[in-house]
């Protein structure tokens, strides 16, 4: 079922398949990047352990900067460091950075095209017990509107590691959206990853699900159910780079299947689904349904409970698609 050419994890659907979190991937990857490149520095606003930065701090104490709980200062300082030739990775929870410091990200970083890497962890519902106040469901909207900024939302742990390597190669600001919750491993060490590329995880003919971030697994699960139970062949296209979009592959898939659904762990307004809709509306108008959080804040609960309550689990995707096919 999975696209063979991508060397994906064939065990992803197994019940006992290992779950891993994006933040662990980030912590490992940033340590490796620090070993490879002397100009990499890491800033954090009192979230060292949360972002898995302790190994980096121990190995490179002079290149680890604790800014205290001051995300605005962190962002503008990151710009100053980047303009002086360093490559700062500034880290926090997504709900603080790029929220609290959006103005600083806009003016100090993006307006100067400063080479700052913004890492927002605990995105989506992955900070679930902390409640709606701590759930980052607007960060894609906040970042994808900014000129010069690349926006990457990896679909799992392994891809997060690849994304960290790739974002270093971009000279300019990048936002990396990662999650706390351990999720199924879709990709492997040898799965290709390039910034700006969308990847067809499952090939299909009847409908395309475009998805981003770790919620991508729910899209795979939905495709599996729809094929096995309803003989509907779903194409699943992962779009880890939200800005710039891989127009060619997205439009290509829409042309092939003629019907599209977007799935994201974010508000449907202004987020990933909006980006897909904007592209399709202009380039290839086609039936398109956005699945995500519908203009409401979250609350406390387990990750699974929140995905269920707010309508972004695989069964919601299955229901939505079955309704579409019923109406036909």
């Amino acid at each position: 079922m999975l696209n063979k050419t991508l060397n994906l994890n064939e065990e992803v659907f197994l019940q006992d398949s290992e779950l891993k979190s994006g933040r662990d991937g980030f912590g490992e990857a940033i340590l490796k990047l620090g070993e490879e490149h002397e100009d990499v520095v890491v800033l954090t606003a009192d979230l060292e352990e949360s972002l898995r930065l302790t190994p980096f701090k121990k190995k490179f104490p002079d290149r680890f900067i604790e800014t205290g709980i001051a995300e605005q200062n962190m962002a503008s300082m990151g710009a100053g460091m980047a303009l002086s030739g360093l490559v700062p990775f500034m880290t926090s929870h997504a709900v603080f950075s790029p929220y609290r410091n959006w103005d600083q990200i806009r003016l100090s970083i993006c307006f100067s095209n400063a080479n700052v890497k913004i890492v927002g962890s605990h995105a989506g519902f992955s900070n679930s017990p902390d409640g709606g106040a701590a759930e980052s469901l607007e960060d894609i909207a906040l970042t994808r509107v900014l000129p010069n900024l690349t926006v990457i939302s990896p679909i799992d742990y392994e891809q997060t590691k690849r994304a960290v390597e790739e974002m270093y190669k971009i000279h300019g600001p990048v936002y990396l959206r990662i999650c706390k919750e351990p999720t199924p491993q879709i990709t492997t060490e040898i799965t290709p990853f390039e910034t700006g590329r969308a990847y067809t995880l499952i090939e299909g003919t009847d409908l395309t699900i475009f998805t981003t971030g770790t919620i991508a697994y729910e899209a795979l699960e939905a495709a599996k159910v729809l094929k096995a139970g309803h003989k509907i062949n779903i194409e699943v296209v992962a779009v880890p780079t939200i800005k710039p979009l891989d127009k060619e592959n997205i439009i290509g898939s829409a042309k092939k299947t003629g019907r599209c659904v977007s799935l994201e762990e974010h508000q449907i307004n202004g987020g990933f689904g909006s980006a897909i809709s904007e592209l399709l509306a202009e380039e290839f108008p086609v039936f398109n349904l956005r699945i995500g959080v519908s203009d409401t804040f979250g609350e406390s609960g387990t990750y699974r409970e929140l995905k269920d309550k707010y309508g972004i689990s695989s069964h919601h995707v299955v229901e939505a698609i079955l309704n579409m096919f019923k109406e036909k």
Partner: protein
Amino acid sequence: MPRASVNNDVEKISLIANNLREEVVKMLLEAGSGHPAGALGMADIFAALYFKILNVDPKNPTDPDRDRFVLSNGHICPIFYATLAEKGFFPKKELKQLRKLNSNLQGHPKFGVLPGIENSGGSLGQGLSQAAGMALAAKIQHRPFRVYCVTGDGEMQEGQIWEAAMFAPNKKLDNLTWIIDRNNIQISGRTEDVMPLENLRNKLESFNWYVIEIDGHNIEEIIGACNMARSVSQRPTAIIAHTIPGKGVEFMEYKFEWHGKVPSKEQALKALKSLASLEGKIKSDYD
């Protein structure tokens, strides 16, 4: 008050400052909008910085060891642009392009469009953090450069200023000099009426800054304070520069109304005449 022995530098720098003020008035007249009060008030400091203090070379504007100058209150950029042109970073004829379409002289400075501009500024309160980042980068990279940051006083009402004010002493950024334009005005009135900043010296000292207060129009004091900052170890220096907004143009001096209003043609001519004649002391081209 720290004083420096600078011989005839003081005279030279004062004359440069006066020329810069003339340029500022001409630029604002040409642009039709902009912020005269702060720009005129900072002319002496800009002249002293660029013609005595900063280690910068217009022929090598990206030298990794150059001193960095960060302008936080970007709206006073006419004086910054005039100074960069005077120093030779770009031709003076470009000054006429201020605030015009397709110009490198944006209404607030943008990094990367002109040599000599080290940051983007506009939304207030960000420059001190940018400067702290550069100063920290110098420490990490073991580079000898110093970082100078100019902020307004009104922008110290932004919370971010105090985040940076906490950070810089904590990281012992003794290569950072913060020059505060204490002109007591902001767009809506006097700072102490809008949102008081006093006691500023005590506030900064309690944040562990080394604080020097100067007359921001006394060239010897400006140079002396910057030299003293160089010798301060283990903590950054804040220079509270008491300035007169609109300095050099009598009808603008001390008046917050001139924060963001440009003079009419007649007013500009009057201002230029006053500046060129050193307030009537000598005959000017405008007589």
